[in-house]
């Protein structure tokens, strides 16, 4: 098989796996649709934004939860932001954990919050790795002279 085709195939398979495994959802598709000639790096840009935003939020959350008097309102606000971001790009798993996190906040359950934070970090890291791999593959395809297939 042609190298380009093989790479493309790999890319497609990988993307499909991501979807199947539930890391990404329909929203990610939407993002990919928005990418066109006038906006060739749209997805990468948005996802990078997501990474930046999420890391910032996660650090903030860690800081707040270490304090003695936890301001749950602030925690909630941050988690809300994270939830919004993750749902905007279709990071399903992260979004789900955020929902659970918010519940813990409402209950003012410190332990629950801590657990959720760990969970979110974990999921976020997973998604981040997957997406970075995806982008690498895309780069490879482009480098080989092919085009990124539309899903």
């Amino acid at each position: 098989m042609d190298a380009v085709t093989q790479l493309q195939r790999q890319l497609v398979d990988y993307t499909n796996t991501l979807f199947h495994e539930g890391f990404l959802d329909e929203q990610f598709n939407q993002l990919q649709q928005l990418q066109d000639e006038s906006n060739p790096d749209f997805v990468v840009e948005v996802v990078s934004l997501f990474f930046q935003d999420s890391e910032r939020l996660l650090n903030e959350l860690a800081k707040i939860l270490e304090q003695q008097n936890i301001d749950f309102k602030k925690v909630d606000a941050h988690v809300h932001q994270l939830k919004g971001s993750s749902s905007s790009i279709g990071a399903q798993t992260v979004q789900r954990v955020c929902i659970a996190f918010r519940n813990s906040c409402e209950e003012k359950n410190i332990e629950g919050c801590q657990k959720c934070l760990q969970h979110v970090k974990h999921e976020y890291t997973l998604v981040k790795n997957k997406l970075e791999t995806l982008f690498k593959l895309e780069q490879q395809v482009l480098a080989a002279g092919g085009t990124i297939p539309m899903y």
Partner: protein
Amino acid sequence: MFEVFVWSLMGLVDCYIICCRHVKEGVSTSIKMESCNCIEPQWPADELLMKYQYISDFFIALAYFSIPLELIYFVKKSAVFPYRWVLVQFGAFIVLCGATHLINLWTFSMHSRTVAVVMTTSKVLTAVVSCATALMLVHIIPDLLSVKTRELFLKNKAAELDREMGLIRTQEETGRHVRMLTHEIRSTLDRHTILKTTLIELGRTLALEECALWMPTRTGLELQLSYTLRQQNPVGYTVPIQLPVINQVFSSNRAMKISPNCPVARLRPLQGKYMPGEVVAVRVPLLHLSNFQINDWPELSTKRYALMVLMLPADSARQWHVHELELVEVVADQVAVALSHAAILEESMRARDLLMEQNIALDLARREAETAIRARNDFLAVMNHEMRTPMHAIIALSSLLQETELTPEQRLMVETILKSSNLLATLVNDVLDLSRLEDGSLQLELGTYNLHAVFREVLNLIKPIASVKKLMITLNLAPDLPEYAVGDEKRLMQTLLNVVGNAVKFSKEGSVSITAFVAKSESLRDSRAPDFFPVPSENHFYLRVQVKDSGAGINPQDTPKLFTKFAQNQTLVTRNSGGSGLGLAICKRFVNLMEGHIWLESEGLGKGCTAIFIVKLGIPEHSNDSKLAFGQKMSGHGQTNFPGLKVLVMDDNSVSRSVTKGLLVHLGCDVMVVSSSEECLRVISQEHQVVFMDVCMPGIDGYDVAVHIHEKFTRRHERPLIVALTGNTDKVTKENFMKVGMDGVILKPVSLEKMRSVLLDLLEHRVLFEAM
């Protein structure tokens, strides 16, 4: 007249006396006339007598002259006097008599010859006139006499007329009484009042002593005293009905006099000393409702009568007059009519009460039925959701499970689970659909779709099963069949699937052919469907689909049952293949909703079967066509729907902000982004046509921003449209949005299609409220 007669008689007597004297004079004068030329009066020896004669003559003359004056005076006064000529004669006669007597006065003394001559002349004239008068009187006196007779006659006549007048007046009064009585009787519809009033009024009008009414008992063998005038509480005194006197009265409709001694009349102990008053009895017909047939106005044979007995006061020597009897008869008739009216009224009141009761019962039943239906619908709605959710989970997870690594037996098990749950899901859907169909709450969802695609899809779905059964499926679409149609795609597909599925199910071998074409008017009407009146029109066409199979066929006797719910043909084939028997019933409902008709034709068992249905579909307009084609193309490739549309996006989350921006840029908008509400209010201007704001942001609430925007731009066409982006789906939120004046709400996450349609709607209608 009598006086005139007297006077004339006197006149005659005078004449006679005068004549006698003259004769006497004449004898003595003829002797003395030879000696001297003067006439010597006859001075008798007794001067006293002469004197008296002189005086009498004088008075007589006076009287004689005054009589005609009187006559003239009075006659002139009276208007009518037919005998003028006679009067003149008489007058002349009297005047002359008077003149004679007057001249006679001169003859008592020495008088000349002239006086004698005058005297003689007057006497002669008097004689002439008096004879004439006498003759005239012969004619007149009988007339005058007869006047008196006439007067007597007239008097008698007058008396007679008076009597008759009296009679007429009495009759009129009686008539008035009857009218009043009738009015009294008819003014009430209550039986007892009618009868009581009758007796009272009759008693009053006719001044009766006693008045009684005998009513026939239930058995009809006796008459019972029911009402009396004087006695307040009549005892239940009965008299057998077969008495001769009673029969006599009943046999005629006239009031009859009966003996006061007969049992019906012996109501009171004898009051008077002598004669009890005369008694009259009359029958009162009692009319039943059943007597009022159109053609035979009450027949005598079925008559029941009551007896009314009227008694005049004792010792009054009063008699029953004819007009009184007539009055009684009239009253009896009126009473009969009034009673029948009362009976009719009672009947109608009873019927009305019955109707009201029934109405109440019906209403109650209806309400109960409605409650039951509502309860069922609620139940179904709940069950709908409750049942589908687990079903969905089962099906989804089973299919996922299928995709994993399984041992063959596990795979088999999973497949069975999947099949069963699919079947169950279909059943649930079927039942729910049918119940909605029956309520009439199902409405077709109209849309434009590709007709050919529908058929192809059905074919694709059915191919696997058919190939397993080794059945050949063919699809023939007529060339003039439009590619696009307007209608309910889902339901059409459901119907088609069901019909084709049945065809496949009931064919063990052979082939199944599906034909579809546009039905022309001749083929529209079918003798099997007498009340199917297809009306082709400009925007619609009738699609006719025929599915022919080579299966078991249908017994012609079973055809009517085919479309009934839950009824199945008890053949081996159907029992094995399962199914709830609802499929065709649902199809029929769908087809009816599409203003069409569905039926099955079969030549008999084992000869295959053809299912035919005709449905009305709409022809899409050309603009729809292009829109559809347009819409069906995948978006992307830089379709600029909204070139240059200035949009402001307010979102504090950088990721979602850039996603939304990307969306809008992709759609060709000119997007400006702000991350806070203060910035938004600062930047917003008339140029921006739409503002997308993420609600529940820190700082100023999204709602407040909307309010501020409304304040800033007072005129509607200057103000940008405000659309809220939110992840919150509850109704309260939506209401809040409406309150602060948002023009639309979108639920996050937003897809490209959604955004496109949102913008379209917004710009077209300037308002959008997505069903959440």
